[in-house]
């Protein structure tokens, strides 16, 4: 705490909030070694198998991992003016270690870790009482997390989803500069998951609070993250735009990590074409049809994915087919895997991923740079309901 003033440095204007990590955490069987600047914008997903170091990374950032070597610096909005201020969280070389309670970093755990001796409101007030320079309105956060009717309840009478909402609200009310989420949905049912994801997205936008979201479920991350960090065995494997990273993961051919797919964010051209299909603009010439949903109506952009196994290849333009989507593209890459072949196909500037059997590949004898048609049903375009 004493040194924290000395560690604050103004940052040149124009930069964005950022977390600079250069650390090494060693255990007997495991080592986490990360050297990476993470721009803090929106929600950044951290993805990987269990024991890939995801949680250890979050604990190191939060200050709960005491044996690390290296340094972590958080650059975020200052209090007085909106100028960016950078704050050293830990620097092992200088023996500097900022305690978790002084880091202004929130963490929502997998098990909500609510205080059993306090009511829902008591848990929220725990944060409010300890927050300096309060700016958030308690009632606004209660509304955002839909806790209005639960305030007087004892926390262990709540369902798992309700408990996580209290944990989320409690973390937000401490007004952190960065919110960490460690598998917050893994113990919840599908309905609660969707509800909480929606809530997280909404809160992120309303409060402009950057989040790091750890999960082993790519499905969850795809719904809310703009950027994805992939860890394996304690090292960074990929980092970047979520769609690009998912496409890179396709080439790993690891079914426990990812179902090979094309991941897209496309503008909505038409909510309903009169037959229950929505239309997305892929590029100037080509559209993608998918089953429409009421939830699309408030949105201009839609996130969706198409499994590589749901797309088929034709050499001529299919005309007499019930399949509504056929796109024209050029084969960029063919990779053989046992009895399957993974094709990377460029449709305009968008890459698509298609798996066909080795048998079909032999029959069609596809070549690189060959022009083909992709076919997939409207129902093969999967969306996340926001």
């Amino acid at each position: 705490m004493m040194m924290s003033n000395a560690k604050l440095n103004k940052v040149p204007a124009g930069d964005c909030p950022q977390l600079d990590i250069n650390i090494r955490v060693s255990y007997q069987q495991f080592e986490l070694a990360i050297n990476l600047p993470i721009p803090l914008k929106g929600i950044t997903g951290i993805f990987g198998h269990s024991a890939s170091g995801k949680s250890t990374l979050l604990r190191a950032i939060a200050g709960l991992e005491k044996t690390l070597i290296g340094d972590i610096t958080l650059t975020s909005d200052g209090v007085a003016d909106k100028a960016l201020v950078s704050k050293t969280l830990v620097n092992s070389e200088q023996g500097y270690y900022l305690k978790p309670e002084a880091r202004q970093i929130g963490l929502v755990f997998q098990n909500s870790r609510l205080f059993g001796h306090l009511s829902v409101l008591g848990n929220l007030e725990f944060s409010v009482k300890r927050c300096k320079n309060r700016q958030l309105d308690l009632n606004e956060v209660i509304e955002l997390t839909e806790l209005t009717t639960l305030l007087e309840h004892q926390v262990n009478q709540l369902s798992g989803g309700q408990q996580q909402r209290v944990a989320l609200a409690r973390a937000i009310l401490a007004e952190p500069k960065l919110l960490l989420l460690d598998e917050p949905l893994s113990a919840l049912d599908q309905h609660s998951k969707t509800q909480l994801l929606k809530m997280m997205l909404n809160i992120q936008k309303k409060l402009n609070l950057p989040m790091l979201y750890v999960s082993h479920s790519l499905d969850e991350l795809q719904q809310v993250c703009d950027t994805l960090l992939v860890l394996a065995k304690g090292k960074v494997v990929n980092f970047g735009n979520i769609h690009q990273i998912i496409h890179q993961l396709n080439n790993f051919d690891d079914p426990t990590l990812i179902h090979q797919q094309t991941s897209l964010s496309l503008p909505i051209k038409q909510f309903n074409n009169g037959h229950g299909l929505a239309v997305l603009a892929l590029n100037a010439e080509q559209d993608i049809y998918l089953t429409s949903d009421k939830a699309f109506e408030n949105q201009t952009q839609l996130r969706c994915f198409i499994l590589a196994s749901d797309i088929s290849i034709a050499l001529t333009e299919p005309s007499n087919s019930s399949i509504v989507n056929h796109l024209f593209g050029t084969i960029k890459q063919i990779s053989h895997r046992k009895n399957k072949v993974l094709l990377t196909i460029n449709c305009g500037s968008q890459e698509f991923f298609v798996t066909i059997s080795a048998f079909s590949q032999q029959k069609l004898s596809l070549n690189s740079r060959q022009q083909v048609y992709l076919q997939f049903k409207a129902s093969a375009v999967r969306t996340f309901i926001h």
Partner: protein
Amino acid sequence: MINSDLQALVTTLEMAALTTLILLIIGTPLAWYLAKMTSRFKVIIEAVVALPLVLPPTVLGFYLLIAFSPEYLPGQLWQQTTGQQLAFSFSAIVIGSVLYSLPFVVQPLQKAFEQLGDSLLEAGALLGAGPIDRFFSIVLPLTKASFITAASLGFAHTVGEFGVILMIGGNIPGETRVLSIALFDHVEAFDYARAHLLAISLLIGSMVLLAAIYWLNLPKRNNNKNLNQVRSIK
């Protein structure tokens, strides 16, 4: 009850109350330290704390008597600072009781702190609560029942103490003459009526106190309030 017995009762209650207070003040950090300790020396400290459970009170009393005498350093220091002899004083029986009842306070607290674990403390820290704040706002309310248990056991055990007091306190009315000693006196003088009165009051008093502790620790009573409490008394 007769005046001298009443005086013994007052001395007993004073001794037990002061002992319990001191035990809570030194026992809490000691229990915390033991609960968080991972060093292999932990077992040695635990054994030392548990020693009064198995040691004959007269052994403890014997060594304390020697330590408290003016010929040895602790007794000397006491005499230099207070001007009074330590052995056979009220202070001596309080110090003796603190050592004698230590495990009854430290063990339930240590168990409660171990069960509480770190997870809620980590959550508290990330919400901006410092260590002292965390102790009073999280640990204390969640382990309240264990504190009540520890204090009650410490108190009751001190009230029932005999051997250590006999060795280091003697039998000075108003100073070191406590109920258990008074009872022994009556028996030696064949005054069974007065002995009965003291014995039955001690019996009922202890019984009521223990029943109250067990009632406080009923699982049903705590289920909705405190998840992480120690529910069993040693």
